[in-house]
């Protein structure tokens, strides 16, 4: 899921200087599971901002709400009236949710209440780790289900680099060496031959390095056709 970290309250308070009606919107999906922007975090932020308000007298009036998925217009539309009546919207969703509201209501000022960090999983209570870089070319079928792009500090495709020791990465000794893990996994699966296979350089143009990406699923498009069956532009 998308992982995010809460911004300091003071930073959000600075963004809101001069505003009166403030709407704080959370999201019940990724950021809720990651304890960054769900219902509880919305309540906490509003309580903290109320304290700042009481201390500094900004005259803020708060409204708070949480939507199922802030990155989808269908879930944002039901709170349209609240958005329109607010001077400022603080989004506790990831960058996708905040931009969905900002794009739907371009006249409204939308402020991010979290810093969107990475695609990761909860490793233990309160610990989230990155496991996918969304590079656009998944190669885990030959690395034992462990992503070398996200989990190796150097994103090595023909690892290991030689710098790891005792199964730990030389870049960060607290991090497990991805290629050590891949070796152990392939050994367990009886597929160690894959370790000697030379892999061609990765095509980074499929990642964000190639610019903003877009997926078009023609089978999902609702595209009208004319009498001859030719697609007509909407």
């Amino acid at each position, binding site marked *: 899921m998308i992982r995010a970290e809460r911004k*300091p*309250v*003071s930073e959000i*308070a600075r963004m809101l200087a001069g505003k009166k009606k403030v709407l704080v919107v959370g999201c019940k999906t990724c950021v809720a599971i990651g304890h960054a922007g769900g219902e*509880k975090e919305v*309540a*906490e932020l*509003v*309580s*903290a901002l*109320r*304290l*700042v*308000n*009481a*201390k*500094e*007298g*900004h*005259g*803020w*009036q*708060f409204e708070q709400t949480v939507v199922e998925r802030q990155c989808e217009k269908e879930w944002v539309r039901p709170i349209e009236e609240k958005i329109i009546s607010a001077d400022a919207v603080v989004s506790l969703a990831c960058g996708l949710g905040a931009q969905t509201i900002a794009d739907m209501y371009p006249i409204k000022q939308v402020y991010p209440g979290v810093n969107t960090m990475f695609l990761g999983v909860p490793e233990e209570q*309160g610990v989230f780790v990155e496991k996918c870089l969304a590079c656009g070319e998944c190669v885990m079928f030959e690395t034992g289900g462990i992503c070398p792009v996200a989990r190796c500090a150097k994103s090595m495709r023909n690892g290991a680099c030689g710098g790891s020791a005792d199964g730990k990465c030389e870049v960060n000794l607290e991090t497990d060496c991805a290629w050590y893990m891949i070796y152990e996994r392939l050994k367990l699966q009886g597929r160690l031959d894959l370790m000697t296979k030379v892999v061609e350089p990765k095509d980074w143009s499929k990642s964000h390095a190639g610019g903003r990406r877009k997926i078009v699923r023609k089978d999902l498009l609702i595209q009208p056709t004319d009498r001859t069956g030719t697609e007509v532009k909407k």
Partner: protein
Amino acid sequence: MSDKLKIVAFVCENHAMSAIRAASIAGESLPESVRIIEIPCTGRLETPQMLEAIGGGADGVAVIGCLEENCYHDIGSMLARGRVNRIKDILKDISMEPERVEMINAASVSGAMLMMKLRQFESRVASLPVLSLKGAIQ
């Protein structure tokens, strides 16, 4: 001192509340500034409730739970400690004194020690600048 101060104490109904009752039986009374809110477990106390207590006029907030190694609900006190620390961080971030919030752990038989810790907390809060909240809490 106690006439002016207001301290809200969120107290778990298990070991912590038993400690207060034990102290009461032994003739000790709560500091005058302390107002008790009994809750099923400190692990169920969320951060907004602590912030709202301060915003509502409390000079200090004490969260009193079981000893961590003997928590009635196993991890309640540990969760509460994390949330109290979160509130301390928020208060520091918004230029308020983190000392206004404190986690206190108590065994049901340690009423006297709990009262001593509460009195110490009351003294610490009393030594802080008077909280001046100008705007209305909405």
